């Protein structure tokens, strides 16, 4: 049987996007059914693909592969490819089912929106990218799909961009996840330098040593932490709740945020080769699961509770990965995708009905929204980890792995996080559904919204019974829970629920939470300020960068360009000086010479007149005068001659002495 249709699974929603995106707003609105049709088509084909792998599926050779070479560099070729094997088959069902549920639900939820066509276009592109990601047979293709999902996340968070908070939330989400993506990108470079290829088969078969694997694994982990909102890169996810709720259900609960976990699952042999990276993964997960869970306890916005819950649950998946249980992580990813998207869709109905996201303004919804309440109950019980709902089984599997690996500290922390989870779930439940009603008019959601919820709720209720089957399909054993761990985890969950009921659920004597806050002001302050992560990032990272760029801009203008302009000015001054030099010195020398010559020549004339000619004339005059004087000598007077001879003798004697003769 030809399996080429697998290509259509991501291609159908991609085509829907390509078709909708260039249309005008009005035409796009009319084309919305096309998008829904495309994702339903993907769902049908995903089921077919799953059945093609079932039941012989085991983690061996892919059932089907399709590869396109997109680049030739030297003697190497870069390819994008899809592969169908058990993991991608399971993920296909998750993504296409939740994707289809969300798109159908959105028909009702978003029908008043003017730009519903654009919403569906972005949702379609996202679905296509996510389906391509889970099918990808190499790290490069996975990264490309990963980034495109980031774009869609950005577009959908900022869907209501006329308002400030969605606008800021969208850029925050993109940039925070991009921080992680840098790690992924460098990991790709390292992999290429080490292996010379990106396809899973070649990369994972490479002889990784601890030394070569650790940097790659840690870089990949960093990328996963951004996408899956792990501490300390988690800050974007709660803000991302500014987007439309169904988009949150798909992207920020079920699928995209789980892509980080999926990446680690795909690269798991590298993590195992490293060892160190597994330990880091474990602790990232533990910290995240507990700290995010604690934050969920103090949120009043129903979507924020769910957002922190998502971060915390993703933390559980990282715990599983870190403990070496990639199948347990994948299992929890699957159950979480269904029950958390269900909770978000339920929250959407609640928000529509109550016209608020603040749980303090809700209450008594149980009677007014019967279908939603039931569906929401299924999701809540799964999240709290109550048997037999799906979350119980997968969380139990994670705890089992921890015990099996003798990670007792980690087990304790995870158990505590599970208790916290049960507490905030019951807090949410009792506040929203059983607290005294705050509003009279409350309307149940439209059928198009309820139907997808019912489907997801049913899956959530029964999925756990297929755990071992799923494990067999994936090639790793998922045993039935052992009584001991099941009892411990159920006790923790029950304690959390009971505590929630005791604080928020009792009609008679509601606990004064205000008093608790006042009694532990520091602890509450830390939680209310979300451990100061946002403040720190906002002040130091964003503010610091902003200030730095301003300084650099001035530096560029004053110093770097200043040097250029300074050189030019100096040159001009020099040239100006040169002109003066030229005029004064060079030309001056010429003129000076000329002047000197003239002066000389003038002097020469005088010289000529006075000296040369004077000499001539002087000689004549001297001769004449001498003649007169000499004439007087010849007077014939003896006294005169005596004087002359005496004088001559004196002169002669002096001359003799002087010469020393």
């Amino acid at each position, binding site marked *: 049987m030809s399996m080429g249709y697998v290509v259509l699974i991501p291609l159908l929603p991609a085509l829907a996007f390509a078709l909708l995106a260039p249309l005008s707003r009005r035409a796009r609105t009319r084309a919305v059914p096309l998008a829904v049709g495309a994702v339903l088509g993907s769902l049908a084909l995903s089921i077919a693909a799953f059945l093609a792998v079932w039941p012989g599926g085991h983690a061996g050779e892919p059932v089907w592969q399709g590869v396109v070479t997109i680049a030739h560099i*030297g003697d190497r070729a870069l390819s994008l490819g899809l592969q169908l094997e058990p993991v991608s088959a399971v993920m296909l069902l998750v993504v296409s089912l939740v994707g289809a549920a969300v798109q159908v639900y959105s028909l009702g939820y978003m029908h008043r929106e003017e730009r519903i066509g654009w919403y569906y276009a972005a949702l379609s592109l996202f679905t296509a990218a996510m389906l391509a990601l889970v099918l990808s047979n190499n790290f490069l293709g996975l990264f490309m799909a990963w980034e495109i999902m980031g774009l869609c996340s950005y577009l959908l968070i900022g869907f209501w961009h006329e308002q400030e908070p969605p606008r800021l939330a969208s850029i925050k989400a993109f940039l925070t996840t991009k921080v992680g993506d840098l790690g992924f990108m*460098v990991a790709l470079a390292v992999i290429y330098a080490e292996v010379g290829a990106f396809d899973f088969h070649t990369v994972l078969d490479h002889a990784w040593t601890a030394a070569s694997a650790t940097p790659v694994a840690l870089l990949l982990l960093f990328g996963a932490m951004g996408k899956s909102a792990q501490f300390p890169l988690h800050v974007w996810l709660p803000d991302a709740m500014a987007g439309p709720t169904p988009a949150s259900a798909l992207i920020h609960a079920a699928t995209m945020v789980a892509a980080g976990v999926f990446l680690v699952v795909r690269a798991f042999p590298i993590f195992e080769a490293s060892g160190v990276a597994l330990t880091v993964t474990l602790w990232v997960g533990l910290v995240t699961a507990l700290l995010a869970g604690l934050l969920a306890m103090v949120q009043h916005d129903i979507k924020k509770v769910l957002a922190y819950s998502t971060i915390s649950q993703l933390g559980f998946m990282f715990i599983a990965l870190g403990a070496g249980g990639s199948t347990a992580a994948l299992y929890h990813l699957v159950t979480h995708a269904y029950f958390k998207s269900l909770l978000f869709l339920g929250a959407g109905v609640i928000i529509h009905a109550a016209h608020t996201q603040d749980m303090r303004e809700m209450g008594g919804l149980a009677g007014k929204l019967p279908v939603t309440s039931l569906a929401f109950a299924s999701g809540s019980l799964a999240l709290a980890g109550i048997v037999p709902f799906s979350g119980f089984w997968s969380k139990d599997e994670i705890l089992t792995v921890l015990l099996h690996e003798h990670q007792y500290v980690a087990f304790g922390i995870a158990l505590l996080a599970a208790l916290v989870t049960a507490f905030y779930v019951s807090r949410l439940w009792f506040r929203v559904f059983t607290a005294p009603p705050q509003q009279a008019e409350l309307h149940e959601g439209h059928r198009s919204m309820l139907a997808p919820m019912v489907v997801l709720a049913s899956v959530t209720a029964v999925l756990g019974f297929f755990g071992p089957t799923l494990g067999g399909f994936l090639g790793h054993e998922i045993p039935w829970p052992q009584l001991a761990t099941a009892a411990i985890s159920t006790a923790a969950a029950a304690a959390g629920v009971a505590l929630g009921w005791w604080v928020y659920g009792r009609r008679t004597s509601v606990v004064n939470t205000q008093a608790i806050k006042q009694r532990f002001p520091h602890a509450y302050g830390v939680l209310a300020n979300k451990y100061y992560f946002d403040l720190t990032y906002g002040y130091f990272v964003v503010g610091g960068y902003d200030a730095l760029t301003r300084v650099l801009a001035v530096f*560029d203008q004053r110093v770097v360009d200043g040097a250029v302009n300074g050189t030019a000015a100096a040159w001009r001054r020099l040239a100006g000086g040169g002109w003066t030099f030229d005029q004064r010195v060079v030309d001056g020398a010429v003129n000076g010479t000329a002047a000197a010559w003239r002066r000389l020549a003038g002097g020469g004339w005088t010289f000529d007149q006075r000296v040369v000619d004077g000499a001539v004339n002087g000689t004549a005059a001297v001769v004449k005068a001498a003649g007169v004087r000499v004439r007087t000598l010849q007077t014939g007077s003896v006294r005169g001659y005596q004087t002359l001879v005496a004088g001559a003798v004196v002169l002669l004697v002096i001359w003799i002495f002087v010469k020393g003769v």
Partner: protein
Amino acid sequence: MDFPLLTLIVFLPLLGAAAVALLGNARASAGRAVAAFVAVVDLGLVAWLAARFDVAGGMQFAEIAEWVPQAGITYYLAIDGMSLAMVALSALLTLLAIVASWKTDRNPALWFSMLLLLEVGMNGVFVAMDFVLFYVFWELVLVPMYFLIATWGGPRRQYAAVKFFLYTLFGSVFMLVGIIALYLQTGTFGILEMAGAGLDPSFQWWVFAAFFLGFAVKVPVFPLHTWLPDAHVEAPTAASVLLAGVLLKMGSYGFLRISLPILPDAAAEWSTFIAALAAVSIVYGAAVAFAQTDMKKLVAYSSISHMGFVMLGIASMTPEGLNGAVAVMFSHGVVTGMLFFLVGMVYDRTHTRMIAEVSGLSSKVPVAAGLMAFASFASLGLPGLSGFVGEFLSLVGAWGSDIPAGWVIVSVVGVLLAAAYMLWLVQRVVLGTPSDAVARIDDLGAREIAVLVPLVALTLIVGVYWDSLLRFTDPAVRAILVTMGGA
């Protein structure tokens, strides 16, 4: 001799320029029609050449004629895949610039003839294989660009035009010294003849330094970049597009065509220094771009950042890095061309480029806004669009080379910073509620959309199917590496 296709591609625009000038301002509409016709024919010739181009054939379509035989100067044109990518970019962007500036009414005859004259120089630089010819084309480019900026530019056009001219001239004087030094050493002006000539390494070092100054100013590499923002801010839209789209690539092309093959030992010695400057250019350009309040200046600084990736790829001297460098050159021409066109189109309507005065485009002019967002995402390197291809390959190449890992990591941070300034621009200009300047403007017309559609298409095609570009560039860069004695 075969049909002189390259001569025709290079000099047809010269005929066009003369014709447009002769038609004069009195018959300007005929003049611009001639200009557009010539640009279309020229692009058609390039396409025809590309269709007949043998990707495995190395240098081809060669035309060699004696020019000044006494001095060993020849008229030597030839083209390989790398040159072809650049000539295609030049011919396409010239045509689009002509169409985009269709409504120029101040001295249109001079305007269109200068655009065509510019094309002569740009095409010529990329196919001239004789140093003297290369130098002539290199300097020829300055003249029309000087007039385009100085005549049709903004308020500080004189300053910017002179700065552009002198700064580049300053660099090319050193280049000339390098050329003469090579000539005296080898007795030829043949660029290809000198490749792999095995010159004395210490001689290479000095010649490399001379060429470095010439090329680095053009690229531009930090800290020789400050002519660029001024030139871009003052230049009219079409000139900005060609300046960023093609002229900057002349510098990096010089490194690839001349410095690496002729001076391989010096190149190896200089590579860490160039990589460091590249990394600084990437991060510095991105950071300064973030602080800009003028859209055009932001795009100008982003160019410095992107050209840093070109230099990083070149410094790596690996097949991945060099392919990445050429891919960034091509993609930057397409994407930044798109951004400058869009900024110009917004400016035509709002009469401002100040980011603070333009907001909420998406609700008033969805087509312009959508295309601007598209170009922004292409610019920040979204996979699936052309910007990613070169950036990624440059990084991969650099990592696999002798470049210290620290500089590669610094460069990677540039990817994040690019997302920051680009999205921050989108945030303020495209999204939000319309500002006063935007309140009563019309969306793009058919002519403007026609200018942008080819660029959008190229961005997508190259981004999805990398080989559409790399099949031309890969054999060319491999030939360069072979002459270098490496890979």
